[in-house]
């Protein structure tokens, strides 16, 4: 919800009960004031009537006004109390009942009693309510318009630096960090906000760069020590007086080193992809790449008695980095071999829009959603580093492809959709 909408809404929320309350109070005040006024007028006319009686001018029923409503008449009753009450009288012209204030009083003069009845129209309650409410709503309406207008003016001037900062923040992309340029304003709070944001962004950027560089640097720095160990294992192996069990230990060291080395290579590749270091793109004929890689891995598949069925549409072209196109396909296919069973099968299906690779194999014992996360791997695959699918994911992210996994009929399906 916009700031303006929100303040307006709160304003209305506060204003509405106030209006209702104010209306009720004013209604009551106006009503009692008016009644008082009417009653005063009634009393005044009562005096006039009494004067008439005193002067002995009243002999029989006599109307006091031209509307033939107020009158004086001789009466046998006598009640010293005067009564004022509301009464409804049918107006034959308007054809409706009209509210009147009616004063009834008895008066004794010249040894005769008289009844005085005086009537005066008074404003009706519903009319009064209508009047009061409409007045108030007009006031509220005008105030709201004035408020919205002033708010709009304010948000354009006072809030201007804020919206500028906001736009600046929206535009900010950590991947191509430019020195953020929050303009200074004459509002203390906004200047503080901008300063804080500047500090924060710079800090985040520093951390981002450090983290980005760390893995790459660490992997790089590891290459030479690994090379030294490897070279020395090679030299030790050549020694003629080395014993059998020592050779076995060397073998273990060599195997472990190989694992470290491939882990390091995979990590380095992953960070390079994520750091966008493969800028060069060209039109790649994916069909040909696929043929070539299937050819390369055929031997690995044969060793596990895995049959590869392929349905490859020719000349499917994608614009991407040549090396990454091979890596992504190789990793998907290697994965299909690694997690396959002896005598299993792999089906490869390439169309214009997608590559589907399915393979037989044991169901996953990890959450399928974690499949593409670094170092998440099936317990059974001890030998794998656990980065192959993470690399697939990061390449497909780089080119906005979509990689999906599902398991159906004891087949693992990997679908790579080219955007």
């Amino acid at each position, binding site marked *: 919800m916009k700031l303006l909408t929100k303040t307006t809404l709160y304003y209305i929320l506060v204003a509405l009960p106030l209006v209702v309350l104010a209306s009720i109070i004013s209604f009551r005040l106006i009503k009692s004031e008016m009644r008082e006024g009417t009653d005063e007028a009634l009393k005044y006319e009562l005096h006039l009537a009494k004067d008439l009686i005193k002067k002995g001018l009243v002999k029989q029923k006599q109307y006091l006004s031209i509307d033939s409503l107020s009158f004086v008449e001789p009466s046998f009753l006598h009640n010293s109390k005067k009564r004022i009450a509301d009464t409804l009288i049918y107006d034959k012209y308007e054809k409706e009942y009209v509210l009147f204030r009616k004063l009834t009083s008895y008066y004794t003069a010249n040894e005769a009693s008289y009844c005085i009845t005086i009537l005066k129209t008074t404003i009706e309650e519903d009319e009064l309510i209508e009047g009061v409410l409409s007045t108030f709503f007009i006031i509220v309406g005008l105030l709201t318009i004035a408020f919205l207008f002033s708010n709009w003016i304010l948000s354009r001037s006072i809030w201007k630096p804020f919206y500028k900062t906001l736009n600046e923040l929206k535009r900010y992309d950590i991947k191509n960090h430019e020195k953020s340029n929050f303009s200074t304003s004459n509002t203390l709070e906004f200047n503080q906000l901008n300063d804080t944001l500047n500090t924060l962004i710079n800090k985040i950027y520093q951390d981002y760069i450090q983290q980005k560089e760390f893995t790459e640097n660490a992997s790089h720095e590891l290459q030479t020590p690994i090379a030294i160990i490897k070279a020395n294992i090679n030299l030790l*192996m050549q020694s003629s007086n080395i014993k059998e069990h020592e*050779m076995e230990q060397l073998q273990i060291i060599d195997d472990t080193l190989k694992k470290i080395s*491939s882990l390091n290579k995979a990590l380095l590749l992953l960070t390079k992809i994520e750091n966008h270091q493969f800028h060069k793109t060209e039109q790649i004929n994916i069909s040909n790449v696929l043929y070539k890689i299937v050819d390369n891995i055929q031997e690995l598949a044969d060793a596990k008695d895995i049959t590869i069925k392929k349905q490859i549409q020719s000349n499917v072209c994608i614009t991407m980095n040549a090396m990454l196109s091979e890596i992504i396909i190789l990793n998907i296919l290697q994965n299909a071999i690694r997690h396959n069973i002896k005598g299993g099968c792999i089906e490869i299906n390439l169309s214009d829009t997608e590559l589907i690779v399915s393979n037989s194999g044991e169901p996953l014992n990890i959450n399928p959603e974690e499949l593409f996360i670094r170092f998440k791997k099936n317990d059974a695959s001890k030998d794998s*580093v656990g980065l192959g699918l993470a690399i697939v994911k990061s390449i497909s992210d780089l080119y906005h492809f979509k990689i999906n996994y599902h398991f159906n009929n004891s087949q693992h399906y990997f679908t790579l959709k080219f955007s």
Partner: protein
Amino acid sequence: MKILLVEDDAHLRKSIKQYLYQEGYLVESASDFIEASEKACVYDYDCILVDITLPKGSGLKIIQQLKEGNSKAGIIIISAKNSLEDKINGLDLGADDYLAKPFDLTELNSRIKALIRRRNFEGNKFIIINEITIIPDERQVKVHGEPVHLTAKEYDLLLFFIANKNRVVSKNAIAEHLWGDNADQIDSHDFIYVHLRNLRKKLLEKNCADYVQTIYGIGYNFKTNEIIN
């Protein structure tokens, strides 16, 4: 055979030097750009192994200098960077091969041999080990003059063994040599065994001596008594 090794890490320099020395090469080394560029200018080498990231300058610049000086030396880049760009840049400048660290010394050795062979320094087009003759240009193998039909992998394996003859070659090194990036993938030891068994069978069928010795479990040794360089 004179080799110049340009590598800034002392341990690695020492190990490579020792291994190549045992192979019968004359190895000189340089630890930084200035030393390397001086040596490369003053002396003639058959092969130069150069690291790209060096103190005081880039290895790529040394390659440039060598090429400008019309050096005939074969150049192999040994780099920790393993970046395609470096590889392309280096090869564009005229380097002959690119080997990413970490590498097996046996692999380095086979690359040096292949390079030297390609440049035909020894003046012959054949590799001859006793009864085995290899014609690398045609990827052909003959035993006692009779051709042996080897698969691509068997041929590569044989060549790798011969480049590292009388040396213990680890299974991991063989796997990496034969399958490259796919090597991590496979139960490489079984694979090597299958290819080796077939290679052996084919050679023995032609009355070739059985040169391949299994070394405990770690690897193999292609043992010949004759030493040819």
